[in-house]
C-alpha cells in the first residue's frame, strides 16, 4: 500500500459509489456489444433482465441455485478442511513440504475433466462425485497459498515463541497462522472462485443438475438471455462468497492499523 499511512482507508460510501459507477459503465458496454455483435449472440441487458424475472417467477432459477449452492459449499468446505492442515503441515515440516509439493503441483495442473471417468466409476454420478469435483478444484489454491504463507513465517517471532517454551502446536496457532492469514485468505478467495467453476463442471459432466444444467439447457438451445441470467447468477454468487471472505479477513487482521 502506497501513499502515506493515513490515506489508506477509502470510505465505504465512496467505494459503493465508484462500484456503482463501474457497474453502469459495464452495463453500457454490454448494451453496445449486444447491438454490435450479430446473430443475437449477446442479448441486451433489458432482455436479460426480463429473462431473469421470468426464471425467478417460475422458481426454476431459485431451485437451481439451491442445488448448486449445496454442491458448491459442501465441496468448498471439504477443500478447506483438507487444504489448511495439508498446507500447514507441508510448511511446517520442510522435508515433507518439499517432497509433496511437486505432486501437489502435478495434481493441480491436471484438468479435472481428465478425472471424470474415474470419478464416475468410483463415486457414481450423484452428489459424492460432484462434491469431489468441487473439492478437487478448490483444494489446490488453498494448499499452495497456505504452504507459501506458513513458509513465510517471521523467524524472529518463531524464535521468540521458542524462547517462552511454546510447543509446535502453540507456535502454529499463535505465531505462524496469524502471520499467514493474508495468504490463506487470498488462497480461499481463489479456491472459492475455482470451486464455483468446478460446481458447474461437475453439474455438466456427472448427473446434469443445478445452474450447470441450466447453462447446458439454454446454451444448447441458444436462449442467450436465459443463458446470461445463469452466468450472472454465478458471478453474483462468486462476489457474495468473496465479500464474505473479505469480512473475515478484515476481522482477522483488525490488529493492523
Amino acid at each position, binding site marked *: 500500500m502506497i501513499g502515506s499511512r493515513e490515506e489508506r482507508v477509502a470510505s465505504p460510501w465512496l467505494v459503493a459509489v465508484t462500484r456503482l459507477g463501474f457497474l453502469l459503465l459495464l452495463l453500457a458496454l454490454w448494451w453496445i456489444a449486444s447491438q454490435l455483435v*450479430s*446473430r*443475437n*449472440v449477446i442479448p441486451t441487458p433489458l432482455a436479460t433482465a426480463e429473462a431473469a424475472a421470468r426464471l425467478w417467477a417460475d422458481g426454476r432459477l431459485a431451485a437451481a441455485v439451491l442445488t448448486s449452492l449445496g454442491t458448491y459449499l459442501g465441496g468448498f468446505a471439504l477443500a478447506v478442511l483438507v487444504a489448511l492442515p495439508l498446507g500447514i503441515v507441508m510448511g511446517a515440516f520442510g522435508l515433507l513440504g518439499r517432497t509433496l509439493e511437486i505432486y501437489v503441483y502435478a495434481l493441480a495442473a491436471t484438468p479435472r475433466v481428465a478425472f*471424470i*471417468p474415474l470419478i*464416475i*466409476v468410483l463415486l*457414481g*454420478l450423484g452428489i459424492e462425485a460432484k462434491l469431489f469435483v468441487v473439492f478437487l478444484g478448490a483444494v489446490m489454491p488453498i494448499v499452495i497459498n497456505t504452504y507459501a504463507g506458513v513458509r513465510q513465517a517471521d523467524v524472529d517471532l518463531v524464535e521468540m515463541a521458542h524462547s517462552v517454551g511454546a510447543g509446535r502446536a502453540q507456535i502454529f496457532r499463535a505465531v505462524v497462522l496469524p502471520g499467514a492469514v493474508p495468504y490463506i485468505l487470498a488462497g480461499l478467495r481463489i479456491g472459492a472462485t475455482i470451486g464455483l467453476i468446478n460446481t458447474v463442471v461437475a453439474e*455438466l*459432466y*456427472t*448427473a*446434469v*443438475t443445478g445452474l450447470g*444444467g441450466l447453462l*447446458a*439447457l439454454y*446454451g*444448447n*438451445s*441458444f*436462449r*442467450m438471455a436465459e443463458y446470461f441470467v445463469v452466468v450472472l447468477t454465478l458471478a453474483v454468487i462468486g462476489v457474495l462468497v468473496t465479500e464474505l471472505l473479505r469480512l473475515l479477513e478484515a476481522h482477522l487482521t483488525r490488529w493492523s492499523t
Partner: protein
Amino acid sequence: QSDEPFRLVVTHLEPPLVPSSVMDLALTLGYFEREGVDVELVRVQQTPSALAALQSGDGDMANIGVDALLQAIAVGADDLRAVTSPNKSLPFLIAAKDSVAAPSDLEGAVFAIGRIGSVDHSLSAEVFDTLGVDIDSMQLFSVGQPNVRAQALAAGQVDATTMSIGTWVSLPDRAGLHVLIDQDAYYAAAPVVSKVNAVPASVLAERPEDVEAVIRALIRISRDFAADPQLWVDAMAEALPHVDRQTLETLAPSYAGSWSINGGMSAAELRETTDWLYRTADFAGMTAPSLDAWVDFGPLDAVLAEVGIVDGADPADR
C-alpha cells in the same frame, strides 16, 4: 472463388466408426482433391462449437445436429442452410445391463439421457413408445455427453442408455452389457434426420463451386463404399490402426443402406424431422419453419444433375 482452403468443421476427432467417416476418408483418399477443392478439416468436440465456428467465419461448412441448427435459426441465425447430409441417420442403439433382458424390464430402472428434452431423450421416448413402454415409468437421469453416459453404464451407475454404435463398439469391456434395441430397430421407430452439413449464406454466395465440389466428393465416396464395403474397411483400418479389423468387418455390412448415395436430403424426411422436433419439449411453444427456411437443395441438385440419381437408395424427393 477464394484461394483459402475450404474449412469443413466436424464434431469428431478421428474417423468415426459410422458413415460420417466419409468426410475424413474423402480427404485422406483424395476425393476432395479430385473434385478440385482444397478442404481443411477442423475438428471440434461438440455441435455448439461447430455452430459458433460457422458464425465466426472460422468454418465454411459444418456437420451439425439438426436440432441445434433449427434452434440457432429460430433465435436469429437465419442465414444458415443445410445442403447435404452424409450421415442422416446416426446409428443409435440402446444398451443395457444384462439384468435388463427386455425393454419392459426398464420400468423403475435408471435410464440415462443427455438431459431432459435433448434429442436422445425425445428419440428414446419415441422408440420406447413404439415398443409399448412408457419412458416416464423409468427413473430418468440426466448425464450429459454420450461418452459420459457410456462410462456411467459401464461403471454400473445406470441401467441403460442410448449411444451410437461407434461408442458401443469402442467400449473396451462390454461384459455384463448387451444391446437392448439395435440400430435398425431404433431407426425404424424414430426415422429422423439427425445430422446435416450446413453452410452460411455468405459461403453459398461466395464459394458455390466449392460447396458443390464438397457435396460431389461426398456422394462419390459414399457410392464407392456402398458398392464395395471392403473399401471402407481398408480405409478405416489404415486410419485407425488400433481398431480390431474384425470389428470393422462386422460393422461394414450393417451400414449397407446407410450411405448417402444421393446426398441424404429427402424433402419428405426433412419435413417429418422438422415436425417431429417441434413436437419435443425443447421446441415447446415455437412454430416449425418451412423447409426453405433452413434447407437449400440448390447445390445438391446441381451435383445430382451431373452425377445422376441412383434409384433405390436414399430418396431425393423434393
